[in-house]
């Protein structure tokens, strides 16, 4: 079925050997899954309502995830398993491919390119992507590729095709293990305070556990089928958690909306998986599909269609324009759940899916050497579109929700332009500051019992200093200000677009539009966060009562997350940033996360440029500067001079300029997408289409004979008046009457009496049986 070459390559790109923590990584999702059942079963009887089981399980999973990360780092550098010799050949061809991909001769913006003389004495130019091999070359040893550690279990065999389940552990999944377990642990701790006293406290923690577990299963999925199951599980859990307070109609509506919108994408995922299954010769194995796609064994057409179908899945799950509308509504859920959804689970699933099946997209969309493709377009529209909407939201959580949509747009954009590592790096850093922001907004809401920034907040920095500080740090990181985490990841994405000549042609293509959209998005991000911070923490307090700072179980997660938001970017500094040479420690993230094996495409890595970083920073700060001038100087000044509690200028642009007003209205209505879905599509199905079907039933079928009769009569009358009477008249009228009477007779059968229907049924069946017996 497969060519010998493909099978050999397949066997060589993973191993079943490795550290205990790598081979038993299935324990990590198992722990929260067990805790789910334990909490459901015994949670109510526990002194803390089951929260302790959940925290213990996710805490243990977090520890295991750390050990797995450490073991992976060791494995990546020192793996010396049995399959070593087989790998070498592939690695060689792989590195040749990479060399062929990027012409690096002038990629020296940072002086990052160095010449390496290997043992044969030939001099070759090596850019950053070859770090792993550089080390090997320098040491004179054999290279150690990042080959995945897998375990597999035959789930069932159908038609001779084994359906595998198991774990596939490599760079991206090991990173996700860390992110998911850490955010989940912090959210668990935070929730013990936040949802304390809730009537469904136990139920909440049970599903928090299952949610984490299903996301962990997803990132470890061995086969597309397993990924689908986990994907659906994640969807179900999000439905349950978003609708946690289902007694209020908007909440249950939001849950339903999230679920149904996701179903749209799930169909895409299913179709994509089916296309890949058949075009890869009947396999669900992710590694094999990737390898066959790269080896050119799957036709370009099939890959393109699979990529398009999977893009639909990503659009719904990761909230990309135009299927993003559920995500802001999902704010109806408890805030810690929002943090978990937006930072680590659920929405990142879509991004991870693309990263996992990257060859399908890389080849299918022809990412390499192009300047536009589906993923990049969707991503860049989302970056700007959601950023604009975030600017007019009054609900602090909705600002953050649209911000997430926008940031996910960055990740999808990065994947679309081939900057795989940048996308995952942004996912990594974004998880920390977005979780920090959501938990911070939860802390604020906990104090003022509202999410409305304009009505119930303002001036909170005096009452909640710690929340204010952490929120500020996370916002700065989100806006991508040097040197916080967001700066490094955003900059890497921007340079990865390769547009307008940045990266000196070392990127995969030249995506000019994406670079511009990314820069605009960066400015917007800073602007809407400045507005949110002003409305929440500055000015005069507009709410009721005396807000007070939250307890330690809420503040400590905030502090931890803001530390990560500040320093998380340091794991992936651009090469040569400090020393000007390819010191290994500056490329840790790329080195450990990006798979360098035969199932991953040889993508180019853009060389960072100082001037882009400076320009991006300037543009990124322009947004906040304008917002700062408007809110902190104009609005605040006016408020102080008039003594009013103002949130906007009374005679601002919106009230004076017609164009601005209509733009504002459009943003307020979120581009009328919900109207499109509800009023146009749903109403069309409910209204005209349903009516049409009803009419078809009622009139068309029943009266078709009558109508035929009537038409005949009319025709007859026309002929009568126009041509002649006599014979013709008689015939025509007769036929008309006949049709009419026939209709009448047929109508009589529709008596509505069930027993007559049954009699007809029996009689017809008997007659048919009789015919069958006699003639057959």
């Amino acid at each position, binding site marked *: 079925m497969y060519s010998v070459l493909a099978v050999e390559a397949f066997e060589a790109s993973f191993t079943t050997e490795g550290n205990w923590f790598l081979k038993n990584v299935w324990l990590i999702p198992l722990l929260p899954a067990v805790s789910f059942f334990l909490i459901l079963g015994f949670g109510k009887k526990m002194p803390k309502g089951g929260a302790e089981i959940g925290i213990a399980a996710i805490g243990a999973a977090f520890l295991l995830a750390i050990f797995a990360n450490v073991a992976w780092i060791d494995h990546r550098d020192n793996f010396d398993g049995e399959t070593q010799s087989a790998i070498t050949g592939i690695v060689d061809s792989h590195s040749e491919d990479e060399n062929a991909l990027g012409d690096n001769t002038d990629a020296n913006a940072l002086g990052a390119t160095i010449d390496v003389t290997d043992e044969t004495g030939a001099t070759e130019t090596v850019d950053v992507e070859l770090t792993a091999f550089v080390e090997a070359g320098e040491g004179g040893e054999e290279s150690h590729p990042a080959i995945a550690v897998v375990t597999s279990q035959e789930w069932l065999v159908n038609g001779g095709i084994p359906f595998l389940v198991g774990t596939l552990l490599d760079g991206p999944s090991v990173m996700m293990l860390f992110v998911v377990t850490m955010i989940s642990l912090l959210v668990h701790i935070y929730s013990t305070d936040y949802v304390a006293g809730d009537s469904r406290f136990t139920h909440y923690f049970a599903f928090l556990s299952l949610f984490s577990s299903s996301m962990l299963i997803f990132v470890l999925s061995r086969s597309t089928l397993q990924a689908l199951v986990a994907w659906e599980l994640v969807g179900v859990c999000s439905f349950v958690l978003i609708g946690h307070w289902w007694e209020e109609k908007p909440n249950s509506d939001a849950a339903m909306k999230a679920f149904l919108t996701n179903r749209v994408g799930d169909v895409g995922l299913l179709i994509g998986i089916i296309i890949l299954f058949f075009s890869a010769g009947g396999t669900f194995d992710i590694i094999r599909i990737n390898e066959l796609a790269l080896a050119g064994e799957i036709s370009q057409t099939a890959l393109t269609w699979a990529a398009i179908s999977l893009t639909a899945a990503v659009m719904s799950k990761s909230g990309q324009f135009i299927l993003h509308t559920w995500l802001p509504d999902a704010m109806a859920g408890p805030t810690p759940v929002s943090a978990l959804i937006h930072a680590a689970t659920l929405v990142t699933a879509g991004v991870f899916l693309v990263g996992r099946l990257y060859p399908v997209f890389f080849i299918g969309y022809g990412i390499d050497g192009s300047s536009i493709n589906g993923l990049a377009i969707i991503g860049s529209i989302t970056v700007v579109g959601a950023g604009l909407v975030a600017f007019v939201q009054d609900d602090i959580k909705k600002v953050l929700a649209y911000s997430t949509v926008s940031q996910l747009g960055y990740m999808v954009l990065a994947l679309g332009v081939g900057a795989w590592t940048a996308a995952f790096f942004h996912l990594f850093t974004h998880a920390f500051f977005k979780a920090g922001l959501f938990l911070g907004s939860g802390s604020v809401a906990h104090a003022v019992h509202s999410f409305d920034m304009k009505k119930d907040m303002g001036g909170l920095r005096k009452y909640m200093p710690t929340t204010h500080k952490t929120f500020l740090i996370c916002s700065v990181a989100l806006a991508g200000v040097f040197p916080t985490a967001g700066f490094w990841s955003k900059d890497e994405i921007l340079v990865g677009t390769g547009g307008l000549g940045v990266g000196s042609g070392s990127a995969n293509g030249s995506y000019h539009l994406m670079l511009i959209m990314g820069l605009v998005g960066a400015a917007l991000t800073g602007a809407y966060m400045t507005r949110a911070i002003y409305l929440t923490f500055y000015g005069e307090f507009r709410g009721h009562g005396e807000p007070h700072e939250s307890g330690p179980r809420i503040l400590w997660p905030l502090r931890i997350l803001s530390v990560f938001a500040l320093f998380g970017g340091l794991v992936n500094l651009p090469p040569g940033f400090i020393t000007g040479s390819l010191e290994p420690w500056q490329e840790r993230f790329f080195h450990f996360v990006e798979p360098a094996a035969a199932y991953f495409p040889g993508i180019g890595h853009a060389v960072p440029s100082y001037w882009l970083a400076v320009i991006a920073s300037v543009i990124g700060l322009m947004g906040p500067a304008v917002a700062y001038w408007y809110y902190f100087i104009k609005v605040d000044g006016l408020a102080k001079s008039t003594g009013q509690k103002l949130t906007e200028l009374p005679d601002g642009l919106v009230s004076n300029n017609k164009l601005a007003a209509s733009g504002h209205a459009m943003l307020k209505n979120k581009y009328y997408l919900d109207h499109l879905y509800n009023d146009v599509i749903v109403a069309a199905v409910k209204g005209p289409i349903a009516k049409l079907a009803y009419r078809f039933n009622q009139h068309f079928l029943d009266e078709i004979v009558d109508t035929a009769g009537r038409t005949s009569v009319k025709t007859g009358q026309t002929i009568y008046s126009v041509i002649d009477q006599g014979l013709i008249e008689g015939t025509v009228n007769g036929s008309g009457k006949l049709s009419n009477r026939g209709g009448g007779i047929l109508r009589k059968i529709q008596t509505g009496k069930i027993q007559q229907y049954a009699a007809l049924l029996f009689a017809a069946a008997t007659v048919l049986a*009789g015919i069958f*017996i006699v003639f057959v």
Partner: protein
Amino acid sequence: MTSALLLAQVEFDVAQNIAFAIIAAIMLISAFKMVTTGNVVHAALYLVIVLAASAAIFILLGSDFVGATQVLVYIGAIIVLFLFGIMLTKAQLGDDDSVEKEQRSMGALVGLLLFVVMAFALIDTFGTQEIEFGNPEPIAYVAEPVDANDLPTPVREALNISANSGTVEISEAQFATLLPEVQRRVPGAEVRGNNAQIADAIFSQYIIPFEAVSVLLLAALIGAVVVARKE
């Protein structure tokens, strides 16, 4: 009654056929009364007779377990359910014989047509094939002394034992020489019964249908409660 013409052509076991004829006659008459009587309660009682008669038919066919189940489930439970239904719906206990003539003749026509087609197909296909009651092999034999006079004639003939030879004991070696249908008539031979076979079949070969039926019963139970519950 129904197959008198066919029966005339073949030899048959008189006692069993007489029993069959009686049962069949009772059954058909009751069934006819059931579908024509105007009295609802009488109809239910006629149904009891039909069901009991069919239990008798099952036993006649050697399926005593099905017969017993029939009596327990149908006559014991389902009929009671019907009587409850009759009471709860306050159906007229007296005559309910106002069925339109047109509808009745139509029903009769359909029923007759159905029977003719089926009868034709059955006679055409199975003709005069006989049911051979099986002779399952004994699964165990424990030799025990027995009066020769009590032994069945085929056993005595096969082993050359005269009726007046007093107490004899048939050894296992002798037992092994007998044909299966003779073996099972020797005292002390243990025959695997029909019930044991049914149990084996249900809990091994048909375990999944069995489970499915149990789920179906549960679903029907819940469904009935939901449908009939007062709001």
